[in-house]
């Protein structure tokens, strides 16, 4: 299959309303890198070769569609096609600036040489310094230049003109310093207008995320940690502003974490939106910068031939990250069981960290099961975070009426090594007419009051 090159140039009048990345051509080059590795920048244009990837993307038209180059309105770029890179560039040079009509590709029956012969000489960059001389020679097109004797051409205008001509006609290979994707993602963005409120930053950040996606895809990575920085307007910057996002300098920052490396920009955008909703900007913002802090190679999933029953919905990590981004990390808890005799130390509800729960720190899993069978059933299903002091009278403890002690005492004496957290308690199962079965305890030491009543506490409900 013959090579197919595309030369591409940004239109001069880029739309002024949208925020533009500082180097839009490089941003586009990353997009093209998803399609082909042969991408190079020549002056202010981008050339790339797509024939090798056409079949994978379902044809040339589908591939151009994938790059957003189909149809008459190609947005902010104009492009031309050709069998060699210089041919494509030459055709691009013939497109008058300011228009967006792509140069019509030649029909399949026209040989590349014949199509190239008609191109004007100013479209060949190497020949441009010699244009007046060539014009006086009566030489205006590529075909006329090529018809001149090669030896004389090389002596008169230099070997590089001849080499460029050979390259344009496909007699020499197209070799360029190819564009490579940087190791770290760090993209700045200048906003079109000053942004006063943090949630409005999301609009600009969305462009950076799209750029990040192109970078991630080109490197086959997933992102785990991201940093978004914004520069505060220096004229109104109050350097004294201190909060979680501003450290008193002229910029603010925000970090995004995901538990699993991801390429899902929709998820990152929602996380960013939740985070930005809680940021208060002390001064307007003009510049944004997005950096990748931690990335991980993303294994590609092998897909099954047979359709399997996929459960609809998003993944657990995404859901929990979203909830903790909106409600706070303390609102997503998971349980951790510890080996201890004190009920309040037997479990701990800790903020969900994303990592799978570590192995039980003190007990072996088998021991958990055996112990659980023996004693766990005697524990209540609700355990109050702090024991609730009960009214006690001579007849016994009261909780919404008198309590009947059904079982007990179960004497607990533990934690004497730890000092202040030592407990001396007698646990009882009690029945309340209103609340069902309760787990209550009596403090054993130094708790007898002069009138003979004792300190009773409610510690759990058998529900």
């Amino acid at each position, binding site marked *: 299959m013959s090579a197919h090159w595309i030369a591409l140039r940004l239109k001069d009048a880029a739309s002024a309303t949208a925020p533009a990345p500082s180097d839009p051509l490089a941003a586009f080059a990353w997009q093209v890198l998803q399609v082909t590795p042969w991408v190079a920048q020549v002056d202010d244009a981008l050339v790339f070769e797509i024939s090798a990837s056409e079949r994978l993307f379902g044809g040339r038209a589908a591939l151009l569609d994938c790059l957003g180059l189909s149809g008459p309105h190609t947005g902010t770029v104009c492009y031309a096609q050709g069998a060699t890179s210089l041919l494509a560039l030459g055709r691009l040079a013939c497109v008058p600036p300011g228009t967006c009509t792509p140069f019509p590709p030649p029909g399949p029956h026209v040989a590349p040489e014949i199509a190239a012969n008609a191109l004007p000489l100013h479209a060949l960059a190497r020949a441009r310094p010699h244009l007046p001389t060539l014009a006086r020679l009566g030489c205006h097109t590529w075909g006329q230049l090529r018809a001149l004797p090669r030896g004389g051409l090389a002596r008169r205008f230099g070997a590089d003109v001849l080499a460029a001509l050979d390259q344009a006609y496909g007699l020499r290979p197209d070799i360029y310093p190819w564009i490579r994707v940087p190791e770290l993602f760090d993209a700045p963005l200048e906003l079109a207008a000053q942004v006063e409120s943090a949630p409005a930053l999301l609009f600009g950040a969305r462009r950076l995320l799209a750029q990040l996606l192109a970078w991630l895809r080109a490197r086959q990575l997933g992102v785990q940690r991201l940093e978004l920085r914004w520069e505060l307007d220096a004229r109104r910057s109050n350097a004294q502003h201190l909060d979680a996002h501003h450290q008193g300098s002229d910029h603010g920052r925000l970090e995004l974490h995901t538990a699993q490396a991801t390429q899902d920009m929709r998820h990152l955008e929602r996380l960013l939106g939740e985070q930005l909703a809680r940021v208060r900007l002390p001064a307007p913002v003009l510049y944004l910068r997005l950096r990748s802090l931690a990335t991980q190679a993303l294994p590609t999933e092998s897909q099954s031939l047979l359709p399997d029953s996929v*459960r*609809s*919905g*998003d*993944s*657990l990590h*995404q*859901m*929990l990250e*979203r*909830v903790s981004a*909106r*409600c*706070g990390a*303390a*609102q*997503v*808890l*998971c*349980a*951790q*069981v510890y080996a201890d005799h004190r*009920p309040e130390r*037997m*479990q*701990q*509800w*800790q*903020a*969900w960290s994303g990592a799978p*729960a570590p192995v039980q720190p003190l007990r072996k899993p088998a021991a*958990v099961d055996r112990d*659980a*069978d023996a*004693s*766990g*059933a*005697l*524990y*209540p*299903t*609700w*355990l*109050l*975070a*702090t024991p609730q002091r009960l009214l006690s009278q001579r007849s016994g403890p009261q909780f919404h009426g008198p309590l009947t002690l*059904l*079982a007990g005492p179960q004497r607990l004496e533990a934690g004497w090594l730890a000092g202040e957290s030592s407990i001396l308690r007698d646990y009882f*199962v009690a*029945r*309340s*007419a*209103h*609340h*069902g*079965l309760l787990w209550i305890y009596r403090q054993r030491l130094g708790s007898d009051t002069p009138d003979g009543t004792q300190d009773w506490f409610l510690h*759990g*409900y*058998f*529900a």
Partner: protein
Amino acid sequence: MITAQAQQAFVSHPSAEEALQGLHAQVWRAHAWARAPLHTVATGEALLDAQLPGGGWPVGALTELLQEAGVHNEWRLLLPALAQHGSGPVVLVGPPHPPFAPALLAQGLQTQRLLCLCPGAFALDTAQKATPPLAPASCLWATEQALRCAAVDTVVAWLAQVRPHQLRRLQLAAAEHHKLLFVVRSLQAQHEASPAVLRLKLSLNDQSHVCVEVLKRRGPPAADLVQWAARSAALQQVLAAHGAPDRPPRAQMPPARQMRQRP
């Protein structure tokens, strides 16, 4: 309209009932269960299963549990189903107290499966500062997010203030993503309209047994109260050893319901 074939069926079959059933497969009679195939999870209590359409908790539908404010007797009712159904996380949204994981583990629910969202009512830890309770809207939002998550099997939500249209949204989410969803509410909601497929009222009798009354189900109105010992077998043994009264007969017709049954 009875065709000749149907008349034949009447004559040949001893029971006219059977013949009618064969004829009118599409007709649902009010004293029978709804016929739509239901995916259910057994409750672990045969008497209660018998009262529920499909023989258990409906999956992909909203089940409402109503009980008096401040009283929470739902664990014993829910635990067998939670332990059985799936192996993914069990999401608890807005529990009123910290669940005691060792006790739940002893009754078959793995600790790793427990996830608590929006536990506004209890502090995170003694060392860390208490978290302020969240707005009810956040709890609702978190519930819906949990229902939309592929990995989650069961969601239990304690929603104090919730409007019928919000419940309807949860019901639709549960149906769409095929989740087991329980919403625990206070008894004041008993007379409000609700989109729940199943509504149960939990109360305690004088022996501290949980009585389950089916307020709404897809089928004929329920006549029986199911009484349920609100304690695990091990606890039951301990109580018996201490001379606590044994469990009473578990299904009985209370006088009030009998009055209502009378034409």
